């Protein structure tokens, strides 16, 4: 092999390797970004599904609070200090969990209002650190019961932004709640930073996932 051949071969090899390395890096970044996007969207969907599920069956709703008032009684879940309170709902106590196995309660109707059991279940959502928590307190169970403990439903969610455009607090006339959630896509560091610093950043707005929920029980 002549020197010329070696130079040409080295140049070609270097060029090919550079292309391969940069392609690999780009591919990995693309995969990571796609993965992050998928995970972010999955978190959004899950959070919306939790909200939808609880709001649909809610008897009363308290927005930006850890308290909801139902039939004149305030029901409060004491969330940790420093937590950002999103929502508290009370839902029918459909199952009697004081027995093993639990049994389904029969509804009673008084003045057109339907009840399952004497005391409803309290559900609250709050953000603490980077995790969004849901806590469900069942009066049939001890406070120390596993089911009554807060459970994270999405991690690394400091970039979540949940808005409500309709709900008045307390609910009097509204029967529909609109909520939406966004996340910061991690395609580029600049977009990521921008999306975190402003909820209206374009990079973030493009990920908005919204939902309109009819409150089926609140005005019964």
């Amino acid at each position, binding site marked *: 092999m002549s020197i010329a*051949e070696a130079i040409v071969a080295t140049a070609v090899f270097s060029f090919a390797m550079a292309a391969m390395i940069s392609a690999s890096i780009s591919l990995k970044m693309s*995969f990571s970004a796609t*993965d992050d996007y*998928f*995970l972010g969207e*999955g*978190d959004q*969907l*899950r959070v919306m*599904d*939790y909200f939808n*599920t609880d709001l*649909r*069956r809610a008897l009363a709703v308290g927005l930006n609070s850890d308290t909801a008032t139902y039939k004149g009684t305030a029901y409060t879940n004491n969330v940790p200090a420093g937590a950002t309170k999103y929502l508290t709902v009370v*839902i*029918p106590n*459909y*199952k009697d969990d004081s027995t093993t196995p639990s049994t*389904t309660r*029969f*509804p*009673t*109707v*008084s*003045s*057109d209002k*339907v009840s*399952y059991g004497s005391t409803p279940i309290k559900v609250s959502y709050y953000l603490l650190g980077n995790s969004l928590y*849901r806590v*469900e307190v069942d009066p049939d169970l001890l406070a120390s019961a596993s*089911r009554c403990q807060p*459970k*994270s*439903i*999405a*991690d690394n969610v400091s970039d979540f932004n949940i808005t409500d455009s309709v709900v008045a607090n307390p609910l009097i*006339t509204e029967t529909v709640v609109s909520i939406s959630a966004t996340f910061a896509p991690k395609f580029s560091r600049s977009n990521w930073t921008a999306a975190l610093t402003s909820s209206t950043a374009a990079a973030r707005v493009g990920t908005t996932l919204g939902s309109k929920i009819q409150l*089926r*029980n609140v005005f*019964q």
Partner: protein
Amino acid sequence: MNTLDCFATEANPLAAEARLHGEKGSALVAGLVTLAVLSMLAAATFQTVTARFRSNYQTASWHDALTAAESGVEYSMARLRSPLTTSGVLTNPLNVPGSLQSDLATLSPGGSSNNGTVLSDTYNGVPFPRIQLPTLTIPHLGQGSSQYIFTTTVDAVPKTNLANSGLNTWYRLRSVGVVPLSGSANVGIQKYDNLLRKLQFRKDSSGAPLTTPQAVRTIEVLAKPVTTGSSALFGQTGINLNNQNVVINSYDSRSSLTSTNGLYDPAKATQSANVVTDDNLDGSGLPGVINLSPTGAYVNGNVATNNTPVVGSTGHVSGTVTQDFYQTLPNPPNPATVTSSWSSFSSSSSTMPTGTQTAPMRYKITEGDLNLTGNSTLTIAAPASGEGYVDVWIPGDLNISGNGGIVMPAHVHATFYIDGNVKISGNGIQNTSLLPVNLTLYGNHDPSVVQTMTVDGNGQFAGLIYAPSAAVSAKGGGSSGDMYGAVVADTIFFNGGTSLHYDTAMGDNGAVIDYRVASWYEDNTLTR
């Protein structure tokens, strides 16, 4: 072969051939390595994509399962409504043989029904029947599954569980929506999803083995009967409340919090008096319009139309103003088919005896018209004990004027079937108890008959007017211009200082015209 290879071949053919063999081997190895790397990349990609696809697919199917369960509720609601709508006339569903309501009221656990499988359950130790409607499968396209499957059971809420909620039966609907999952029986990659979306891969809820994984969601709904008096004012083609002195509000004669001794008390008035209109069902094709006048009549409740803007000011409406209202109104009963045992009653007679709830006295005015003018008064006899019931069929007009009137003592429940026009003035119909649930005026059962009803004069009107084809106008009842009860008509016109105080107790009594969802619960045992 490249140019360098050609030169080498010419100088030393054997050496060149040997080198070529070696290079060919290197190329093979390099090719295989490259292929392996690419294969691993492809495998990793497919694995990643498949896991995410499965996760999305399961999420979509989980959503579909709720749609399936909701379809089951709609299906069972349609089955409940069926006996109400078949004839087009107000019908007691309990009196329709073979209806779901009739079967649930009459069947014993273990009996048989054409509506479905009769199951047995117990409440407080007392067995009661539940009817499981046939399981339905609906094919569909789109992301997620290709089938919706739902099974619904219906039973009646025991009377012992109903307080201050009317005499009509409430029903409990439990619907289970099932959607098959295709693909392998693996959970998604997002761990928190599995806490929310509990999918069934190996066994169903009862523990029976599954051949196909599935998403299952269960909802329970209570269906409340909607009666003829469910709204304060219901005008099929229009309501005109022509000035701000018209006041519509509500009270509940059953509650001391919202009434005094069962009577309207202005200090305890509530805001549940809804004023609604429909797109008319009499075939004219005109939308129902609500006119609240430029100064704005006072409506202490909601105002609803069917896709038609409200005319006038809504500034005095306490509740919501919406355009999404729809409700089918059946025609009033035809007295000739209600019973054949009508006793003749001459309007010259002065006193009308009553019967019991199960066997009311029934009278047909022999003269056709019932004219109570001058000092003519028709008095319905007070029952000797308990409650007295009477039905009166007026084949012609009802005219009350001068000092004439109809006197209804307390504890009397009167139902009038009026085929002709109605003009109530003079002393009017004196419902002594002032309980609107005690008096019902039915209009003509034939929607093609043009009928008018006018209410004014000194007697306070307390009752329900149910005349979906009639034009009803009120110009103030009694010295205060007050009316108590509800009006259902084709058109409604209030002027002067007419006030209507709607007794919400009427919403729980009277004839059933529909069912609506009063309670909705999804049993997804979220964190259990």
